[in-house]
C-alpha cells in the first residue's frame, strides 16, 4: 500500500498550491522510495518517460505562426468578423464550435482544432467580440468566464467525439486490454457504443453553453448596479 503515498503527495501539493512541477517530482520520488527503488533509478525512469512523451509538446511548434498573426491583428480581426453578425452570441458560437469539434474528432481529425490552434487565436476572441457587441463592453470577470467556457467547449468536444473514430488510442487500448483478459471485441462495436454518451455530452454541455449568454447579461447588470 505504501506506493500510494505519491497520490497523497499530489493531492496535498495541488491543494496547497505548490508549483505543480515540484509536486510531481516529489510524488515520483516518494512513490519510488516507498517501492524500494534507488533515487537514481527513479530519476532515470522519470527522464526516460519524459523524453518518450515529447510528442505531446509538438503543438508548441505553432507558437511562431500564431504569434506572428496576432502581431498583425488576428484576434482583433476575429472580433470584428463576429461583431458584424447580428445573430452571433458567445453562447451560440460556442455551441457551434462544440458541434464542429465533436464531429471532426469523430472523423479522426483530432489535431485539427485545439487550444493553441483555434481557441486562443480564433474562438475565444470571436466569443468575446460577440458578447462585447451585444452587451456594449465586457468586464474582466466576464471576459475570463467566456475564455474558460471556450476552452471547455474544446475539451468536451474532443473527449466525447474521439471515441467514435475507430483508430483512436482509447479504442485500441480497450480492445487490447480486453484481449489480454481473453475477451474479443470488434473496434467497430466499441465506436458505436460511444455514440449515446457523445450525444448526451453534446446536450448537457450545449445547454450550459447556450445559457452562458443569460449568465453574461446577469453579470453585466449586476456590475452596472
Amino acid at each position: 500500500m505504501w506506493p500510494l503515498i505519491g497520490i497523497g503527495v499530489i493531492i496535498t501539493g495541488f491543494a496547497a498550491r505548490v508549483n505543480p512541477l515540484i509536486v510531481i517530482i516529489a510524488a515520483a520520488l516518494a512513490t519510488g522510495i516507498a517501492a524500494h527503488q534507488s533515487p537514481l533509478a527513479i530519476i532515470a525512469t522519470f527522464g526516460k518517460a519524459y523524453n518518450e512523451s515529447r510528442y505531446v509538446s509538438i503543438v508548441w511548434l505553432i507558437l511562431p505562426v500564431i504569434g506572428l498573426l496576432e502581431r498583425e491583428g488576428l484576434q482583433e480581426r476575429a472580433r470584428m468578423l463576429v461583431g458584424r453578425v447580428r445573430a452571433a452570441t458567445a453562447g451560440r458560437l460556442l455551441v457551434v464550435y462544440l458541434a464542429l469539434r465533436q464531429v471532426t474528432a469523430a472523423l479522426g481529425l483530432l489535431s485539427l482544432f485545439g487550444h493553441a490552434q483555434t481557441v486562443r487565436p480564433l474562438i475565444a476572441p470571436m466569443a468575446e467580440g460577440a458578447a462585447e457587441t451585444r452587451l456594449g463592453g465586457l468586464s474582466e470577470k466576464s471576459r475570463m468566464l467566456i475564455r474558460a467556457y471556450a476552452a471547455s467547449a474544446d475539451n468536451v468536444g474532443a473527449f466525447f467525439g474521439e471515441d467514435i473514430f475507430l483508430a483512436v488510442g482509447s479504442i485500441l487500448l480497450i480492445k487490447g486490454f480486453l484481449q489480454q483478459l481473453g475477451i474479443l471485441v470488434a473496434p467497430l462495436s466499441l465506436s458505436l457504443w460511444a455514440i449515446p454518451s457523445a450525444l448526451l455530452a453534446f446536450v448537457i454541455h450545449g445547454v450550459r453553453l447556450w445559457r452562458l449568454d443569460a449568465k453574461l447579461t446577469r453579470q453585466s447588470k449586476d456590475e452596472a448596479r
Partner: protein
Amino acid sequence: MIGLEQVYWLIGMMFIAIAVQSWRDRSHRKWLGNTAFWGLLGISFLFGTIIGSLANGILVLALVALAGSGATGLGSIRTTSAVARDARARRHGNWLFGPALLIPVIAIIGTFMLGRIQLWGFPLADPKETTLIALALGIAIALIAAMLWLRPSLHAPIEEARRLSDTIGWAAVLPQMLAALGAVFAVCGVGQAVGQIATTWLPLSHPLAAVAAYCIGMAFFTSVMGNAFAAFPVMTAAIGVPLIVEKFGGDPAIMGTIGMLSGFCGTLTTPMAANFNIVPAALLELPDRNGVIKVQIPTAIALLIGNIALMSFLVFRF
C-alpha cells in the same frame, strides 16, 4: 525517412532561438532564468534521444528547479500595440485567417497522403506518425506563407513565439511531466494498490452497484492520475471484467466504451490533466489556474450520472 525525430529538431531549434532572444533581453531581471529554461527545453528536443535516461532525468530536475524557484517569467517583448493591431486587422482584412486555416488543411491532406509518397522505394514519412508530421508540415508552410506575405523582420516570429511561451511558462512542460509520473506510478505498482482498495471496500453484490462503482471508480481514479488510460486497465481488471461481464453477464464492448468515457468525465475535473485544463488557462491568460476546471465540473458530474444510467440500461440488454 522523416519521423517524429525530425519534428523534434524543429521544435528544439525554435526553443533555442527563444533562449537566445531571452539572453539578449537584459531589460528585466529574469532573463537568465528564462534563457536557461528555454535552452534546456531546446536541448531536450534536439538531443533527448541520444543523451540517455539519467541525463534526461537530470535535465528535468534542472527545469523543475528553475520553474519552482520562480527564476522564470514574462520577458519584455517587442511587439505591436493594441492600436496598431486594430489598424493592421482592418488593413489585412479576412486574409489574416488564411495562414491559420492553411494549417488544418495541409494537416488533413498530409495525414492521408504522406504515408503513400515514396522516394527510391522508401516511404518519405513514417507511416505510423503521419498525423503529427502532417501537422508540423502544415505549421511550417503556414509560417513561410505568412512571412512572405507580411514581410516582418526575421526576428518577429521568434519574438512573438517568446511572448506566447513566456505567457505559458512552466505549464508548457507539465503534460510531459505528468506522463513521466504515470510511468513511475506504473513501475511502482500504484494501479494495483488502488484496484485492491476499490474491490475490498466497495459494495458490489448488485449488478447496478457494480456498474456505479466501475464508472465512479473510473472517473475518480482518472482525476487522481490525470489520465483515463492509466485508470482503465486497473478498474477493468478489478471490477469491469470479473463482476460486470463474468458474474452479471454484461456486454464487454458497452462496458469498456462507456467505462472509458466515464473516465473522461474525471479528466474534465482535474489539474492533473494539464494539457487540457492547466495549459489552456495559461494560454488564455486566466488569472485563476483552475478557471477552466471550474466551468467543466457541472458538465462532468451530469455526464457521469448520465453514463452510469446509460451503462445500467444498455450493458445487460445486448
